[in-house]
């Protein structure tokens, strides 16, 4: 059962990722990314991290993707021209991607990590549930937690400054 779910979710994630890259229309790319994110949430559940999976669906597939859909609807889903500024870009880029994948796979699989080939240690029932993650966030990682909240606030203010209306008399 776990294998079936893993391969279904893996194909969903991979198909979504390829869809993001291959779709001509940005709007379809956003929809493919939503499929990808839901499949990743299933994978997170298989790795017994329920809270990250829930955050993935609520924050990512919910809020962030809505932002993308609004921006794509605002700027218009224009299709890219076929013009290439770098000769052979469409041929070289997949080649580099395959090289990157082979390199990463070798780096991980040829390492001497002891848990490779196992399913990891047995975990207790509460592994990765909101209580455990919340405890870690507030007890052990309080400073990174606060720092990331300040970062989010700064990003929101920055986006308003960047995208806000031009004031009177301001040159382009």
């Amino acid at each position, binding site marked *: 059962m776990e294998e079936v779910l*893993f391969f279904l979710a893996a194909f969903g*994630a*991979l198909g979504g*990722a390829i869809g*993001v*890259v291959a779709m001509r229309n*940005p709007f379809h*790319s956003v929809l493919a990314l939503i499929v990808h994110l839901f499949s*990743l949430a299933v*994978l*997170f559940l*298989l*790795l017994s*991290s329920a809270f*990250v999976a829930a*955050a993935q669906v609520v*924050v*990512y597939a919910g*809020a*962030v993707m809505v*932002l*993308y859909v609004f*921006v*794509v609807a*605002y*700027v218009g889903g*224009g299709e*890219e021209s076929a013009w290439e500024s770098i000769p052979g*870009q*469409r041929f070289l*880029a*997949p080649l*580099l*991607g395959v090289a*990157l*994948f082979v390199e*990463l796979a070798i780096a*991980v*699989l040829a390492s001497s990590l002891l848990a*490779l*080939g*196992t*399913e*990891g240690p047995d*975990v207790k029932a509460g592994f*990765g549930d909101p209580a455990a*993650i919340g405890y*870690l966030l507030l007890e052990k*990682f309080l400073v*990174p937690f606060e720092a*990331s909240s300040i*970062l*989010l606030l700064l*990003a929101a203010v*920055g*986006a*308003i400054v*960047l*995208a806000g209306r031009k004031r009177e008399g301001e040159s*382009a």
Partner: protein
Amino acid sequence: MSIEWYIVLSSLLFAVGAVGILIRRSPVVILLCLELMLNAGNLALVAFSRMVGNQQGQVFALVVMVIAACEVVVGLGLIVAIFRRKLPLDVDELRELRG
């Protein structure tokens, strides 16, 4: 499922995202491909956290999600600003900063 399947899947997704950044020219799609790469990193973090049997990797994954949200907000703000100034939404044509 053995852990290395997750790691291999994560490197595959990372490579797909990198290819997307290399071949696409619309800034929106480049941001989407960045999301792909960040999520591949998240999958590796969560898989490693399961492999060690320790939840701290999941906290890292949550922080990566926050970083991704910040990047999206600033990036989309830039795209809207570019669009408002009637500049082309194509990273090859936005070359004024190129030396």
